[in-house]
């Protein structure tokens, strides 16, 4: 029998959410095709295999697409934002470059409106996602420790926690002096051999790709399983637009292959997994007579409510040696200031993620930026004062949705295939500024208690737009949301979105485990409704 020229499910994007969705749907035996604009990664080509690894981390493996400027990247106009976008385009997406910090949301994160009177509640809650968090942890391989009093009890399978190291011990003592919470981080870095992958050997270069394969990037976790199960992955394929039929249903996509040739794929279901910038960009580029304002945009909310996490960096200089750059950046976290306390003058809160220290180049650049290392003869003494003597933390501050923070299409800027590029317009809210100030002050107390003799801080971290959320939010009201409570477009009943775009609020933790748990949840919803998926 000839193969149906129309694929059952077309997934656009092979990052965190696309990988999880592909793997979950594979057991249906449907014909699933995933289009990814980047290539398949080769860990042995990652920067940490070479002496120039810190240079490459700011070059061809930079977190900034504008800095990398690879053929697989699209440019982003971010002139109108104090926080610049970090992403990666390739199989694994942003997880190729993420640090692997893998905490879950708190139950309160799904009820922000009810609890604090701001933003909106999610249409689902922590209990809805809990089984998918567990399944996602199992697929990814997560190090950590059960029993954190900042979270509800769970029965997640965890590998032993990452080592405390010198830096973790120094900072743990600081937290303990103040009687403040800390706990070993849940981290997508395996501390024992797991699922055919070798354990972490403390390369210290997690942020530019893990050559060991110990970090749970989606290319080494979900994709090998999805491919073995029959999912078809087409790399170097950049989608220009989602196509629609006269009935208003999605019919597939038009894309450019690696040779730059235009191709079309037809599909019964389209799933978007392109992150909080790429998804609204593609929807806004998919204009038609039926959808003149972009696809799935009857609410007018596609691209709006962009949330980053405003990050602050607070690093201490100690008289004793720290871990420097050896080991995964994260060891422990604190959620002492996570939940709302009205006395603080702002709502919501943040997670403190411990940073072990910096490699030489990053030490020097931090010293330049903070005026601790001069140009000239005093460079060496000043450098040695900081090198292997720094440890501290970043604060991941919850960002609240505001419609004026948005992704639009740039009228002039285009990618290598001539597709209009996204433009980011973003301002920090008063709430975020107060939260960052609070984080810097509390972190400084911790570092001082831990024995720091100097403190360097930066708020926000200008290049720290790692987390891209909110630009196609989920909800039960079609006038106030883009997708419903199980990820289906209100307007186009065979179009689904599963990336960070559908977040209603951002919480104060790294989003990847929630993005992937959501993708698994949406996939299960689809599987349980196959008979009436488009009703």
């Amino acid at each position: 029998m000839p193969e149906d020229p129309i694929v059952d499910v077309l997934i656009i994007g092979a990052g965190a959410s696309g990988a999880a969705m592909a793997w979950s749907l594979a057991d249906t035996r449907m014909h699933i095709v995933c289009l990814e604009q980047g290539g398949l990664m080769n860990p042995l080509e990652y920067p940490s295999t070479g002496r120039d690894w810190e240079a490459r981390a700011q070059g061809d493996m930079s977190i900034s697409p504008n800095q990398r400027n690879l053929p697989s990247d699209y440019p982003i106009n971010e002139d109108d934002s104090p926080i610049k976008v970090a992403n990666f385009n390739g199989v694994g997406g942003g997880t190729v470059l993420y640090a692997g910090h893998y905490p879950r949301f708190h139950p309160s994160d799904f009820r922000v409106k009810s609890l604090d009177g701001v933003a909106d509640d999610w249409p689902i809650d922590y209990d809805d996602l809990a089984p998918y968090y567990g399944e996602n942890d199992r697929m990814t391989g997560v190090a950590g420790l059960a029993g954190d009093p900042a979270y509800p009890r769970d029965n997640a399978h965890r590998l032993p926690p990452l080592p405390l190291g010198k830096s973790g011990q120094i900072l743990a003592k600081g937290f303990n002096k103040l009687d403040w919470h800390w706990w070993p981080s849940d981290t997508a870095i395996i501390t024992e051999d797991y699922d055919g992958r070798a354990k972490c050997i403390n390369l210290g270069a997690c942020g530019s790709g893990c050559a060991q394969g110990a970090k749970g990037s989606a290319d080494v976790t979900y994709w090998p399983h999805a491919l073995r199960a029959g999912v078809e992955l087409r790399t170097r394929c950049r989608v220009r637009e989602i196509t629609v039929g006269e009935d208003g249903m999605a019919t597939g996509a038009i894309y450019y292959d690696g040779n730059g040739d235009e191709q079309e794929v037809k599909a019964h279901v389209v799933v978007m997994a392109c992150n909080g910038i790429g998804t609204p960009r593609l929807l806004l580029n998919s204009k038609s007579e039926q959808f003149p304002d972009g696809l799935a945009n009857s609410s007018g909310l596609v691209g709006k409510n962009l949330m980053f996490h405003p990050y602050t960096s607070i690093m201490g200089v100690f008289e004793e040696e720290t871990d420097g750059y050896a080991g995964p950046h994260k060891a422990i976290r604190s959620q002492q200031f996570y939940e709302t306390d009205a006395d603080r003058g702002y709502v919501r809160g943040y997670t403190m993620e411990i940073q072990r220290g910096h490699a030489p180049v990053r030490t020097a650049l931090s010293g330049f930026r903070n005026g601790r290392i001069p140009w000239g003869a005093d460079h060496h003494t000043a450098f040695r004062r900081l090198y292997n003597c720094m440890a501290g933390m970043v604060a991941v501050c919850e960002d609240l949705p505001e419609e004026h923070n948005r992704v639009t299409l740039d009228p002039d800027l285009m990618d290598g295939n001539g597709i209009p590029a996204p433009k980011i317009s973003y301002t920090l809210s008063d709430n975020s500024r107060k939260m960052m100030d609070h984080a810097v002050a509390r972190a400084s107390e911790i570092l001082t208690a831990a024995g720091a003799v100097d403190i360097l801080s930066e708020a926000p971290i200008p290049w720290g737009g790692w987390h891209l959320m909110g630009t196609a939010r989920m909800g039960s009201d079609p006038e106030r949301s883009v997708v419903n409570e199980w990820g289906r477009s209100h307007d186009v009943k065979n179009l689904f979105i599963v990336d960070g775009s559908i977040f209603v609020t951002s919480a104060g933790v790294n989003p990847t485990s929630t993005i992937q748990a959501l993708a698994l949840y949406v996939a299960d919803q689809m599987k349980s409704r196959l008979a009436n998926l488009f009703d």
Partner: protein
Amino acid sequence: MTETTFTETEARALTILADMIVPASDEYGVPGAGDPAIMDNILADAERHRARIIAALSALDDIARKEHGAVFTDLDPAQRDSVAETFRAAHAAGADLIANLTVQGYYRDDRVMTSLGMEPRPPHPKGYEVEQGDWSLLDPVRQREAFYRETE
């Protein structure tokens, strides 16, 4: 020196700047960043920023001409210092880029890494040791009551 697309004058200006940013040190037994082997690193990394580097060097020469009537490479050390100070204040992005490339090239040199007590090798495949640490530090936190916020 490996091949570079920068002109001899541009490479000379970058070498002078690199040595101004990180000069040699007898105390620590390390070369300056203008050392030929280190400049090979710097010039190789600078290629991907070629347009911005050339614009920065052009701005540097404009300041040199305005302040001293000659291009940067023809100035004496004291004049270069004053021009560099003006350059850093007026063209921070360009100056930061050159400083960034300088330390990227400098801190992967064998002599420099050895002087810092580092093994002159990439992180992979050997990796590093990180001590497990004293987990009894967690004991007081284990005693805490759950403090996450209930939603019901």
